[in-house]
């Protein structure tokens, strides 16, 4: 048997080994993608359309689709999440049974597999409402996927604003709505923005919810045509739009172009870099906005 001192020593060695191994795995993971993918990145790769059968295709359309879909998703989901978050924190009676049920529902929504959310979007919007594989269907599916997290982050941001501020507004005869709109929300902006950007990173990389809603094809776009009602216009929300994440999956499971591995490595690298950027952007924005808010002019 080991004495306590020896087992302490042994445990320490083990913990160092485990931590070292995990660091190694995670570093290898990121390293592999960057090493494989970054050399493949070029202006051509990032801007030209993909090709199905021959080498030399790019990810231009997919990259644009990812960003466009992200923006559409945020336009739909942010107002809803903001409203729900405000109600939950500023108006709701926390002991009310219905409110508790609501919280449970939101929690369940956040834990649903994204493929199920995507299939629901497919069933209801693509098929029933006949929206087809489109940016709109995709954005709605991503909204469902995004709402719980965003709502929670709005609520947490509101919670971080001291109650003193609410009392100040109330004591001046201001309605809760006025106090929230003019006092509480402006003070919560830095952390709400952080939450939005972090959720944007998640939405940007989501694929399973999209393959049957935004679709798996990326028709060529005419970047000279910005009329949203034209079929080839990048802004058209009724066109199918394969995103970067979906492209990686598609290329790997069905791709027959000779440079599939290189294309997916490059696309993966772009995805990871985008997630990194969203992360830094969140940190940066929150600190800048926070400084601005407390600035003494």
């Amino acid at each position, binding site marked *: 048997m080991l004495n306590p001192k020896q087992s302490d020593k042994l445990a320490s060695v083990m913990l160092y080994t485990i931590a070292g191994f995990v660091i190694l795995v995670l570093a290898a993971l990121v390293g592999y993608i960057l090493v494989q993918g970054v050399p493949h990145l070029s202006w051509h790769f990032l801007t030209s359309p993909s090709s199905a059968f021959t080498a030399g295709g790019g990810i231009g359309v997919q990259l644009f689709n990812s960003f466009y879909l992200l923006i559409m998703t945020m336009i739909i989901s942010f107002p809803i999440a903001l409203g729900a978050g405000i109600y939950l924190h500023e108006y709701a009676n926390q002991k009310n049974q219905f409110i508790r049920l609501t919280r449970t529902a939101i929690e369940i929504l956040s834990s649903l597999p994204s493929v*199920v959310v995507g299939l629901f979007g497919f069933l209801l919007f693509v098929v029933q409402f006949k929206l087809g594989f489109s940016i709109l269907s995709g954005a709605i599916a991503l909204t469902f996927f995004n709402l719980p997290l965003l709502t929670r982050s709005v609520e947490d941001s509101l919670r971080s604003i001291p109650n003193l501020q609410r009392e100040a507004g109330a004591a001046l005869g201001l309605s*809760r709505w006025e106090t929230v709109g003019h006092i509480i929300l402006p003070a919560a902006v830095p952390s709400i923005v952080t939450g939005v950007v972090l959720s944007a990173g998640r939405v940007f990389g989501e694929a399973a919810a999209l393959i049957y809603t935004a679709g798996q094809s990326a028709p060529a776009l005419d970047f000279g045509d910005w009329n949203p009602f034209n079929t080839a216009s990048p802004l058209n929300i009724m066109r199918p739009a394969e995103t970067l994440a979906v492209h990686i999956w598609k290329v790997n499971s069905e791709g027959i172009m000779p440079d599939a591995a290189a294309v997916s*490595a490059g696309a993966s690298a772009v995805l990871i870099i985008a997630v990194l950027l969203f992360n830094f952007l969140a940190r940066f924005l929150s600190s800048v906005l926070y400084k601005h808010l407390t600035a003494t002019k």
Partner: protein
Amino acid sequence: MDLIRESLLKKSKASKKDQFGRVITFSALLLIVLVVVSIFWFVASKGLATFFSNKVNLWDFLSGKNWAPGQTDASGTPLTGALPMITGSFLVTLMAALIATPFAIGTAVFMTEISPKRGAKILGPVTELLVGIPSVVYGFIGLSVIVPTLRYLFGGSGFGILAGAMVLFVMILPTVTSMTVDTLKSVPRHYRESALALGATRWQTIYKVILRSATPGILTAVVFGMARAFGEALAVQMVIGNASLMPKDLTSPASTLTSILTQGIGNTVMGSLENNVLWSLALILLLMSLVFNIIIRAIAKKGAI
């Protein structure tokens, strides 16, 4: 005097604004609830159609080993045995959780107890970042690194349960680790101090005091990771081989609920039996995510007492 009295009895502009705000924000909340209810409603009604309209026997569905919904067996009943996928899903999830748990706990203990400085500076941000990496990227890694490695080690194609479990292990590791770190951090400082003051070694303190009091939180982290693994579709689909056969070993092509679902739903006709059974698979996914949710709640309830 009277003006003030009157104004007190009338509905003020502020009251009206407040009413407006209440209605608007409540509608937003209601919309979310509506979404959750309709997801359950639609998936359940589609998924149950297999049993009510197509008269598939529930037990045959859950325990049958032959999956070929387009074909019928000798007696004319369609081959809708979902056991291969159910087994596949549970196997990859359990294996991934089994491998990830010790690594996650070890790393979390290292980050909070052994080397908090390095933990805070390097490991912390790195795990946070990895939590955000899209699952297709994990799938791609699996396809280009794990599958060839397994092929080299064990022969065969490399696709299979083991490849799926490895991909999910790497995928849930950051999540489980960072949740475990949060739990360990919430263990009160004086627990450590009093244990050390009683002459316990660092390892005894970690093992007997800290991990013990953090058990509910760690369990939550693991179950949360399992829920993610169980519901993950594309990363698994890319490496498991997608053969709807009962898994004979860990390194031959198999399938999970999600992998068959993503593959099949586009290739079947809405309303047909082939399509409805796929929705039944989706319903199992939905119910399992409820089960994970209930487990997490039960742990939280027990931990609170």
